[in-house]
């Protein structure tokens, strides 16, 4: 379960996320809807720690996420999948290399094993 508590984020003088709290329960599909510029992407990025909030907390299965050290965060992040607005594919890599990138980084399999496996 992902728990968001009193999350706030301001860019300059523009408060984008104002005191948001919510529980995203396991097994449920949650949908965040809003106008363009209302802060949907910012909220998603705050939840996965890509942006640091001004205040508030995020819990993954009861573990506080924001204040975690990089190594501990890494453990949780490896369970997160995120599809970016602009696809965020690595343009220096081929399609095949893009698909195999996580396997290349996190497994001991060779390139040929990755492809056939």
């Amino acid at each position, binding site marked *: 379960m992902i728990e968001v508590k009193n999350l706030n984020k301001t860019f300059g003088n523009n408060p984008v996320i104002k005191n948001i709290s919510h529980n995203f329960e396991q097994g449920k599909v949650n949908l965040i809807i809003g106008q363009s510029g209302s802060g949907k992407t910012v909220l998603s*990025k705050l939840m*996965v*720690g*890509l942006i640091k909030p001004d205040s508030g907390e995020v819990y993954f299965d009861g573990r506080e996420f924001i204040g975690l050290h*990089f190594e501990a*965060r*890494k*453990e949780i*992040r*490896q369970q*997160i*999948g*995120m599809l*970016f*607005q*602009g696809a*965020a*594919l*690595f*343009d220096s890599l081929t399609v095949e290399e893009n698909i195999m*990138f*996580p396997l*290349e*980084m*996190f497994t001991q399999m060779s390139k040929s094993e990755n492809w056939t496996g």
Partner: protein
Amino acid sequence: MNWLYHLGRYYILIRRTFKKPEKGRVFWQQLVREMDSLGIGSLGIVSIISIFMGAVICIQSAFGFESPWIPLYAVGLSTRDIIILEFSPTVVCLILAGKVGSNIAGEIGTMRVTEQIDALEIMGINSSCYLILPKITAAIILFPFLIIISMFLGLLGGYVVGVAAKAVTSYEYIYGITWDFRPFNVFYAIFKTYIFSFIITSVSAYHGYFTQGGALEVGRSSTKAVVYSSILILLFNVIITQILLS
């Protein structure tokens, strides 16, 4: 106090960069790619500039030493010292700051604005270590070799043009470049190159990594990378020279 903010952020980035890479095999692949791109890819421009600058330094030295009191071998001597002490390590590194620095800032900046860096972070990859460490390592390994090649080609350019233009004889030039040769000067040049390599790659990567916005900001980051790298090279040139040669 804006510079303190940047200095702190730069320090944090560098501390995150010098961590153990996620996977050794991937790091070596990246390193070889960067060595080819940053080092081998710069060989052409370094060679051309070194040959022509060596030639010009030789002719200008000959022009300046038109006195019966100054021996002709002084042309070779001054060409050697200018090339080894200043031209190859400093001027060539300033040129590399323009070529390599803008390339690094542009590449990393584009990855930032197209969320490729965010994608790396989401996967649990230390993005600064993955992207920046191979670039810094490649530059530190290869730039000293580029500088040694630049020294050799600069002296060769001076010899060919100096002799062809009859500014100096072959014997006098070779006598001049070998007279009172101090190996410490080469050490000094290589030491400077190590520092400059780190400045070029880390400062450019810093500007690229913290790019915010779109294509326009990527261009601005590239410009900033070149400007700040060049200023820091000039500043550290004075500091290192004062420490090692005074």
